[in-house]
C-alpha cells in the first residue's frame, strides 16, 4: 500500500491535489510552533549573563544555519532520486529546495553578521561557521545559476542533480578545511557561536524555532513545487482544466 502511494505520488496530477489538501494541515502547526518559539525566545528566555539580550538572535541564526545544511542534503537526495528513477516530482522538489535553501543560508549569514557587530565590533568575521555558510551560499547559487542556464528543464534538473551530489560530497571536506583554517589564525577570542553548555530555558525556544523552520520548509517547498509542476505540465489536460476552472 505504501509503495502504491509513492507510485501515485510520482504522478504530477496526483501530487498537486495531494499537496494542495496537505498544505493547511502543515501551515497551521508551523505557525503555532513559530509563535510559540518567538514567545519563548523573545519573552520567556532569560537575559544572558555575558551577551545581554543580543544573544536572542541565535533563535533565527542557528535554525537558519541548520536548515541551510539540511535543505542541501534534501536537494542532493532528491537529485539522486531524479537521476536514478527519472522521477519528475523529485526533480521539482530539488530545484524548489535550492531557492529556499539559499534564502536560509542568506538569513544565517546576515543574522550572523548582525550578531557579530555587538560581539566583536565588526560587521564580518572570518569565523569558521560563517565562512562555511558563505561557501554554502555559493554552492546554492551555482545550482540555481546552472538550472537557469539550461533551457530544457529535464536536462537542467539532471545537471543540477549531479552538481548537488558533487556538492554534498564536498561539503564535509569544505567544512573541515575551513574549520582547520580558522584555528590557525585564531586569536585569543573564543567563538561565541559555541556556547559551552546551554541552559534548558534557552534551549527550548531554539528547538521550537528549529521545528517551526522545518515545517515551514515543507510548506514552502510544496508551494514552489506545485508552481514548478504547473509550469512544466502546462500543456497537459489536467492543468488546462484546472486553469479554466479558476
Amino acid at each position: 500500500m505504501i509503495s502504491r502511494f509513492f507510485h501515485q505520488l510520482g504522478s504530477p496530477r496526483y501530487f498537486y491535489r495531494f499537496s494542495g489538501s496537505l498544505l493547511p494541515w502543515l501551515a497551521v502547526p508551523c505557525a503555532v510552533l513559530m509563535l510559540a518559539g518567538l514567545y519563548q525566545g523573545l519573552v520567556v528566555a532569560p537575559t544572558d549573563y555575558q551577551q545581554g539580550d543580543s544573544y536572542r538572535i541565535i533563535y533565527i541564526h542557528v535554525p537558519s544555519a541548520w536548515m541551510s545544511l539540511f535543505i542541501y542534503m534534501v536537494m542532493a537526495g532528491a537529485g539522486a532520486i531524479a537521476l536514478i528513477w527519472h522521477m519528475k516530482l523529485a526533480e521539482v522538489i530539488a530545484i524548489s529546495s535550492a531557492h529556499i535553501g539559499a534564502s536560509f543560508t542568506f538569513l544565517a549569514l546576515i543574522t550572523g553578521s548582525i550578531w557579530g557587530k555587538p560581539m566583536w565590533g565588526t560587521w564580518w568575521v572570518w569565523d569558521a561557521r560563517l565562512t562555511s555558510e558563505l561557501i554554502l551560499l555559493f554552492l546554492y547559487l551555482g545550482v540555481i545559476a546552472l538550472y537557469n542556464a539550461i533551457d530544457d528543464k529535464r536536462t537542467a534538473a539532471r545537471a543540477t542533480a549531479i552538481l548537488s551530489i558533487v556538492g554534498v560530497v564536498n561539503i564535509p571536506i569544505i567544512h573541515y578545511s575551513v574549520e582547520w583554517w580558522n584555528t590557525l589564525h585564531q586569536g585569543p577570542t573564543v567563538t561565541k557561536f559555541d556556547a559551552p553548555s546551554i541552559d534548558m530555558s534557552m534551549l527550548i525556544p531554539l528547538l521550537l524555532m528549529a521545528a517551526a523552520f522545518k515545517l515551514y520548509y515543507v510548506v514552502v517547498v510544496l508551494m514552489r513545487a506545485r508552481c514548478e509542476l504547473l509550469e512544466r505540465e502546462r500543456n497537459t489536460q489536467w492543468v488546462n482544466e484546472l486553469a479554466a476552472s479558476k
Partner: protein
Amino acid sequence: MNEFFHMGGYAFYVWTSYAIALVVLVLNVLVPLRNRRRLLATIARRARRARRT
C-alpha cells in the same frame, strides 16, 4: 514592555535580525502564491485564445 523593545540596549541588532527574517519568510510564501495565480491565469488565457481560432 519598554524593556522588551529595548532588548538591553541591543534593540537595533535584535529587531533588525528578526525583521529581515520576517521579510525572507514572508517573501518565500508570497512569491509561489503569486506565481501560481499568474501561471493559471496565463494558461487559461492561452487556452481561450486557442479555442477561439
